[in-house]
């Protein structure tokens, strides 16, 4: 067997194909999508000699297993997990050569949630609007992996660079999210804003690629009416009627009708992607010096 493809032996709880996503189409209702932990994706790709945003597999909680039909260099990163090749232990966080027909098993995450599996040449699923990412909200891109599915691989790049070990940030014990207030913080009471900025929240098990849901003190609205739908950004902290903040992740809807109390700094979102349910969450407001509108209650 020499064809460049891999067969899915065990799809796992939720394994999707992810690359840099589809920015630039929000006005058509298309979410940006892409890897939730882009740093982990980039690093895994570099270890096998791919461009940083080549398509990889993103696993959730319990990993996956695949059988490449060709010999291929692989790197598993992101959430730490056991890695085996035909049952023999192999390195996590480093380039590993998998022989044709061998089973690469990515085990359950020991810490964190999402592991990233990069294959030299990248996963070559059919692109949609320039991206191979699975978008769970609107169903664009390749379907989540199923047992028995076959995914094509791209042509093998020249030999990967000679890293043998690289530093990986560990998943957070506590999720600290720096937020910039607004655009609709004035829809909440001063008491709610103070609770949001000072009280402890926890990651809810209902979190997914669309949003990190939280449990904690509900935020009380100062304005009762309905907000006309408006554009939503990555990291927006939207507050639905139950008052529990939801942090929008890569597959978030492009417009929404609930007020956004604050926006999480983009570089804090990779940790949000790796925070297991129950992880304590703190929202820390940051302001820019040039900001003229002083919010109340922050």
């Amino acid at each position: 067997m020499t064809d460049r493809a891999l067969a899915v032996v065990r799809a796992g709880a939720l394994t999707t194909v992810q690359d840099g996503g589809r920015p630039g189409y929000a006005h058509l209702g298309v979410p940006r999508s892409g890897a939730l932990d882009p740093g982990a994706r980039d690093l895994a790709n570099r270890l096998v000699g791919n461009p940083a945003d080549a398509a990889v597999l993103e696993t959730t909680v319990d990993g996956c297993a695949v059988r490449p039909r060709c010999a291929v260099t692989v790197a598993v990163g992101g959430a730490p997990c056991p890695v085996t090749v035909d049952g023999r232990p192999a390195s996590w966080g480093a380039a590993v050569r998998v022989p044709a027909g061998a089973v690469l098993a990515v085990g359950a995450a020991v810490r964190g949630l999402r592991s990233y599996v990069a294959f030299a040449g990248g996963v070559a699923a059919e692109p949609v609007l320039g991206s191979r990412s699975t978008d769970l909200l609107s169903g664009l891109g390749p379907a989540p992996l199923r047992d028995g599915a076959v995914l094509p691989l791209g042509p093998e790049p020249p030999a990967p660079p000679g890293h043998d070990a690289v530093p990986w940030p560990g998943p957070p014990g506590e999720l600290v999210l720096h937020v910039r207030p607004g655009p609709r913080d004035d829809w909440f009471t001063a008491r709610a804003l103070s609770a949001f900025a000072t009280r402890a929240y926890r990651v809810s098990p209902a979190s997914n690629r669309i949003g990190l849901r939280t449990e904690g003190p509900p935020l009380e609205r100062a304005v009762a009416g309905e907000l006309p739908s408006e554009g939503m950004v990555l990291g927006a902290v939207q507050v639905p009627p139950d008052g529990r903040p939801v942090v929008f992740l890569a597959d978030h809807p492009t417009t929404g009708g609930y007020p956004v109390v604050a926006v999480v700094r983009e570089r804090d979102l990779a940790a949000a992607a790796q925070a297991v349910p129950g992880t304590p969450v703190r929202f820390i407001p940051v302001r820019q010096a040039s900001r003229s509108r002083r919010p109340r209650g922050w």
Partner: protein
Amino acid sequence: MRTLPVGDRALLVEFGSGEETEAFHAELLRRRAAGALPAVTEVVPAARTVLLDGVEAPERLAALVAGWEIEPLHARVDPVVEIPVRYDGPDLPDVAALWGVPPADVATVHSAAEFRVAFCGFAPGFGYLTGLPEAYEVPRRATPRTAVPAGAVAMAGPYTGVYPRSSPGGWQLIGTTDAVLWDPAREPAALLSPGTRVRFVPRGVGAR
């Protein structure tokens, strides 16, 4: 016009009416096409706002747009997209009752209007179309349907929309179209994008 910062890289520009919002959006696109707008990754118009996302210096952009003279929405000469419709939706009798007209007149009223895509969202290719006189606004259904079929032509509030694919939905279904709203293999993938002019053309039941 009011500008609100959204995180470190985006700006929300808010207006008092949908028309002002659409005029500003058209102005933005004109200036972007002319190369007179700083780099922006996303321009997302909505009901009363336009979001500018992926902006290097949102505060500078806010100052810039505040100084713009915005051309009113009048001289649009883009071609009209015609969407053939069979006015056979299950909620057509309810809509007729709300309007106080015989069911057969719903098609006449609805197809007489010229619509414009105010904004998109909800699903890829779903456009929120305005243009029907205010007197014909209808509420959402009290109980949303768990599955609305692809191609359903539906109304809620000031908007008409066509479902690009089967999904849950609470809008009033007045008809069906075979038009393909979304096809990622087509260029452009979306039949409707913000600003597109649209007319619904009645077709006999069963006609293609």
